[in-house]
């Protein structure tokens, strides 16, 4: 699942689509298409990759298919990867600060 998320995020058009949904969620394909210089087919293809990675989920509302940004996979990557590395760096800086202050 992580691979799919990283792959989905490794494309500027797809990141742009996520940003559009971040600004306003629950949009139809037609609305998203109107903001991108791209064919409907192209937008569909990118949305599909985002949906497969779980970054976009759709729900039906009457006859409309609305697309929502799902931030949970990014949170999982944050909790799995980013926290781990930043925590070490933050604690290393905290140790350095303590050492410098003790020797001062």
């Amino acid at each position: 699942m992580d691979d799919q998320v990283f792959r989905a995020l490794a494309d500027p058009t797809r990141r742009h689509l996520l940003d559009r949904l971040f600004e306003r969620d629950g949009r139809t394909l037609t609305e998203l298409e109107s903001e991108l210089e791209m064919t409907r087919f192209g937008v569909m293809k990118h949305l599909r990759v985002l949906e497969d990675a779980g970054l976009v989920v759709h729900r039906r509302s009457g006859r409309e298919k609305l697309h929502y940004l799902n931030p949970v996979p990014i949170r999982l990557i944050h909790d799995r990867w980013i926290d781990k590395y930043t925590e070490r760096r933050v604690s290393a800086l905290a140790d350095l600060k303590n050492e410098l202050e003790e020797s001062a």
Partner: protein
Amino acid sequence: MTTTTEQTTQVYAVFIRATPEQVWDGITKPEFTARYFYGSVIDSTYEPGTPYLGWAEDRSQQYVEGEVLEADPPRRLVTTWRALYDPETAAEPYSRVTWEIEPAGDNVTKLTVVHDELEAAPKTAENVAGGWSYVLSGLKTLLETGEPLQS
């Protein structure tokens, strides 16, 4: 999440390596919720029309107030929602939270949380926007490893 406009329907989904019954227990039993839901214990009998309340673990403070609208274990839980931990969200009307649990393959369950009816509750919409991701990530970790996320 300060640059986003408040979303009146928010959708959060996660795949969890667990059975629907385990996911249901994870969201309904206070001994589980205390370990990933910002330390809050949920009190409810899960009968439609009865209260759905979230408390600090020592019960010194109430965090969430709501009512069970629908409960269909282990598939679906719908409650109203008012967050009491912030005076601004506490002053807003109730919104609605729907938990949908679906089998998604061999010992994998898809959990979707829809927080909607937020039109009259913009502070709540803003407040919960980052929170649900944290909660679902924590629930996934707890059910898959038996341990809460390091905080």
